[in-house]
């Protein structure tokens, strides 16, 4: 047809399809009415006729809409895509104009988001996600016991084999099973021998969790009986690493700690039971008898607390009943002990969520991890503040452009949208950088700090990616909206005439506030870092009563059946003699209660109806060989140590610790006092007093303890302590081969410096110190860059003013001082607020610290000093630039 003007250029601004239909019908009516009126009808008549000719209006319209439906969907998608592409192109153009800014923003946000991504991966594993392969994890619960426990009131996870059988008999539990702590056993013979992490579990442990094997199957009831032939299940990881993922491994017989065991299955990938620590092989719980002692006491005796149980509940309603029934069985089965006052009749059995960190037995690491999430969010906040500050400065430079566009009629909301989109795009790229950082950094955090958790192979799980994406969006909005709104709040006349260089006071104030906020947050983080570092120092210098840094612990594993008490005593005696000739070994002593184990024997004291037990509990029983005090570094306070002459038949003697001496015989000389040990008639005479020592935990109150000669009761040692005169790690390397070869009865010897055993206990503080420091330094760097950019910008903006001052004769030193003082003022303000803030927060973190006050003056002082020094350094460069302003040039540039 005839010529026409095009209405719309692109997809943008087109009418919606429904609207288009209405427009089209309107057009029809208008044209038809025209034509009919030409034919002589009145307007009203023409309208009626036109409508009649078009047909039933609603029906026709509906038909047309239906015909368009598919197109509508496609069109909507297209429009959305077009709008996004258009927006992104615009944003990209904006970004390209200032690549330096873009790179800074991407890196800053990437760092902030990456730190969070890495921490999220840790927290997700520790706190949020249940262990892998557990079916309906909400229904599986850990069983705990609260009550008197070796003299202290405690919540423990340990339970006995008969108690597990009791749990199975509670009908309100759908099922119950138990697992023992993982121990190192030797697998294979001869050259092939290696240590594996073996975990003993009952057959119903696996059915309770609802885990399905990858290959073969887990043990059944028959295989979990005394006398059954040995069976084992390999972990997926161990199977891949040691057998190359060979499916024919099923049915093979392997030698585990001297027992023939048939491989019957492979667990699914990543299965670690109810904990997160990796396992190499799973073996039936009944293996305990042979792997631990020569008797099956472990399965029948209610005094061996070696298992931890889990139950699957039917529903939440029956849980209370089930717990009550389990508690009743737990206490009633020990009626004798309760009657004799040896067992807490108020002990309570209860259950806790499967995720350990959510229950009362949450590890310190997981608590620290919680805090570190907060810390990483602070790092991100600082990054956002920094980006916002940069964008504000950038906005000043763009004022003229903004003013021009506003005056051309571009709506302000559209400008804001564009600017925010620019920031979001940068944040998205930053999110990509963050994922790389989270991948590498997260790997380092996880491997170095919490190594005994089996992490899912990739640190970039879908959850981490989703979390980072969400965070990128949030960070982009947080950093972008404020500056975008601010930059478009333009005074048109001024901005257009002054070339965008007028007064910037308001914005400087905002940026100053942002800088103060950054300094504040950095100060908080650094105070946290300082407190954790102090904790680590405190832990390291803690007087445990034994020379942790000099001691090596050794335990033997035997070949061809476990030796009886007498043979074991002889073997350990022989081992002691072998070790004493090794260079670097100062002294060797045996004991039946090694570090981190406890043994309590009932004692009675003439003249005392009952023992006054301090909060630390006790009395702990230590059977020791002569030389124990000297080896351990326990200082003898009074009397004599255990001697070679204290043998079977000689008068029974004991060396008590200071706490016991003072508690049982206050104000008296303990030497020569008598107590009855283990219900014996014979008096055990106190011959010496030694200093108090840790019983394996770093913290806790002082307990009662006594040492008696092993030889007097015919008991054998369970392990040896070796005192070294140098680095215990070096000596351990010499000791291990000697112990492994001195007798054919010895299959393996576990040799470990005591410090290495202790380290996991101090790890929460080490993690705290390391990550708080890392994040704190990161924050400091970002904040310093922020301060620098604020001042540099300020100097650039004030070039003219500085030039005039210089022309009027202002001294360079004075100019410099002015700039540095501005920076220092901001920093000091931030530090002050930060220190007040961290003092408010410190009480909440106290449980994570070790003997350190949240308001530690050394830490606060050091942080304040550090921040101010950094602030001054960051201010000097822009300050110097200000001194170089040439008055002539500054004035001419106008």
């Amino acid at each position, binding site marked *: 047809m005839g010529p*026409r003007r*095009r*209405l*719309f250029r692109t997809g943008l601004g087109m009418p919606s399809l429904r609207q288009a239909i209405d427009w089209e019908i309107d057009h029809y009516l208008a044209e038809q009415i025209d034509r009919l009126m030409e034919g002589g009808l009145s307007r009203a008549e023409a309208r009626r006729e036109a409508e009649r000719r078009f*047909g039933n209006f609603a029906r026709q319209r509906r*038909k047309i809409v239906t015909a368009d439906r598919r*197109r509508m969907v496609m069109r909507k998608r297209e429009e959305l895509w077009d709008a996004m592409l258009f927006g992104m192109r615009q944003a990209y153009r904006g970004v390209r104009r200032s690549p330096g800014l873009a790179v800074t923003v991407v890196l800053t946000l990437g760092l902030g988001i990456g730190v969070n991504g890495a921490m999220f991966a840790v927290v997700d594993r520790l706190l949020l996600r249940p262990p892998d392969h557990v079916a309906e994890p909400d229904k599986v619960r850990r069983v705990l016991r609260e009550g008197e426990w070796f003299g202290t009131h405690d919540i423990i996870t340990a339970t006995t084999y008969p108690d597990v059988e009791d749990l199975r008999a509670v009908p309100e539990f759908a099922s119950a099973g138990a697992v023992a702590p993982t121990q190192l056993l030797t697998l294979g013979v001869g050259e092939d021998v290696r240590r594996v992490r073996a975990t003993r579990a009952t057959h119903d442990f696996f059915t309770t969790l609802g885990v399905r094997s990858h290959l073969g199957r887990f043990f059944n009831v028959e295989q979990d009986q005394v006398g059954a032939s040995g069976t084992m299940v390999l972990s997926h990881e161990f199977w891949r690493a040691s057998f190359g993922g060979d499916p024919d491994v099923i049915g093979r017989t392997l030698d585990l700690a001297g027992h023939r065991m048939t491989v019957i299955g492979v667990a699914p990938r990543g299965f670690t039971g109810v904990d997160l620590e990796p396992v190499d092989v799973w073996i039936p719980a009944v293996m305990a008898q042979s792997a631990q002692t020569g008797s099956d006491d472990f399965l029948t005796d209610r005094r061996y607390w070696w298992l931890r149980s889990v139950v699957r509940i039917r529903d939440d309603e029956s849980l209370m009943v089930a717990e009550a029934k389990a508690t009743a069985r737990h206490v009633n089965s020990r009626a004798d002990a309760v009657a004799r006052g040896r067992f807490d009749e108020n002990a309570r059995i209860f259950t806790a969520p499967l995720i350990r960190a959510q229950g009362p037995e949450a590890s310190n690491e997981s608590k620290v991890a919680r805090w570190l999430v907060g810390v990483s969010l602070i790092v991100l906040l600082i990054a956002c503040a920094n980006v916002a500050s940069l964008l504000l400065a950038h906005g000043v430079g763009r004022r003229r452009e903004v003013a021009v566009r506003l005056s051309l009629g571009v709506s302000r909301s559209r400008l804001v949208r564009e600017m925010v989109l620019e920031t979001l795009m940068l944040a998205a790229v930053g999110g990509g950088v963050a994922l790389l950082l989270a991948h590498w950094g997260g790997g380092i955090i996880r491997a170095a700090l919490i190594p005994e958790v089996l992490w899912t192979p990739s640190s970039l799980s879908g959850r981490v990616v989703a979390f980072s994406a969400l965070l990128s969006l949030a960070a982009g909005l947080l950093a972008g909206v404020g500056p975008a709104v601010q930059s478009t709040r333009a005074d048109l006349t001024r901005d257009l005439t002054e070339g965008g260089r007028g007064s910037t006071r308001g914005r400087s104030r905002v940026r100053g506030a942002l800088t103060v906020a950054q300094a504040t947050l950095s100060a908080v983080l650094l105070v946290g870092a300082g407190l954790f570092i102090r904790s680590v120092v405190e832990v390291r210098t803690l007087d445990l009563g034994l020379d942790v840094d000099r001691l090596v612990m050794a335990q033997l594993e035997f070949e061809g059946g476990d030796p009886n008490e007498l043979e074991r005593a002889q073997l350990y005696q022989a081992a002691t003699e072998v070790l004493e000739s090794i260079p670097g070994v100062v002294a060797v002593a045996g004991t039946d209660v090694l570090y981190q184990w406890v043994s309590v024997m009932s004692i009675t004291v003439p003249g005392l109806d009952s023992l006054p037990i301090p909060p630390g509990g006790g009395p702990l029983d230590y059977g020791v060989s002569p030389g124990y005090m000297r080896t351990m570094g326990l200082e003898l306070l009074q009397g004599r140590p255990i001697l070679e002459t204290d043998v079977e038949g000689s008068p029974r003697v004991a060396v008590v610790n200071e706490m016991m001496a003072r508690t049982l015989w206050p104000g008296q000389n303990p030497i020569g006092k008598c107590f009855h040990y283990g219900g014996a008639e014979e008096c055990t005479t106190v011959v010496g007093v030694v200093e108090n020592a840790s019983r394996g935990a770093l913290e806790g109150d002082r307990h009662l303890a006594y040492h008696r000669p092993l030889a007097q009761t015919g008991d054998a040692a369970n392990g040896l302590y070796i005192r070294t005169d140098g680095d215990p790690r070096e000596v351990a390397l010499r000791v291990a081969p000697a112990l492994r070869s001195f007798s054919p009865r010895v299959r393996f010897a576990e040799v470990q410096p005591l410090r290495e055993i202790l380290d996991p206990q101090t790890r929460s503080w080490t993690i705290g110190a390391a990550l708080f420091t890392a994040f704190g330094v990161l924050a400091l760097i970002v904040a310093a860059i922020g301060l620098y950019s604020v001042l540099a910008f300020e100097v650039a903006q004030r070039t003219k003013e500085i030039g005039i001052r210089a022309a009027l004769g202002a001294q360079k030193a004075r100019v410099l001082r002015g700039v540095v003082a501005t920076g220092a003022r901001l920093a000091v303000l931030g530090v002050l607020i930060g220190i007040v803030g961290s003092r408010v927060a410190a009480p909440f973190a106290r449980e994570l610290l070790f003997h350190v006050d949240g308001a530690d003056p050394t830490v606060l002082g050091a942080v304040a000093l550090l921040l101010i020094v950094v602030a001054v350094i960051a201010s000097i460069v822009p300050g110097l630039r200000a001194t170089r302003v040439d008055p002539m040039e500054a004035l001419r540039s106008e």
Partner: protein
Amino acid sequence: MVARKTEEAMTKTPLGPVQGTLELLILKTLGAGSEMHGFAILEWILKSTDDVLLVEDGALYHALHRMEGRGWLESDWGISEKGRRANYYRLSPEGKKALATEERRWERYVEAVAKIAPHWAGT
């Protein structure tokens, strides 16, 4: 279920005479490469068929949208010579192909009708 579907498909495949004819007429109207708005197409068709083909004018718009959905037509908004906002239609490359096929199909149809009722087929 299946049988009914087939039945439906069969009744739909050869376009009914009126519907098929209307689409062919639209294709032919735009076939010369011109761009026209709906009312112009309507007038053109009415003029060339002596007002016989359409029961309701709305059916034409329905057909236009149906054909655009099928990809035979493309449209753009513009201002008509009378200064009104109007949607202009033109043939897409697919529409040009469709014109050829539909013409052939129409010829076959006419031939078939002519065999049964020769006196109808004269032009």
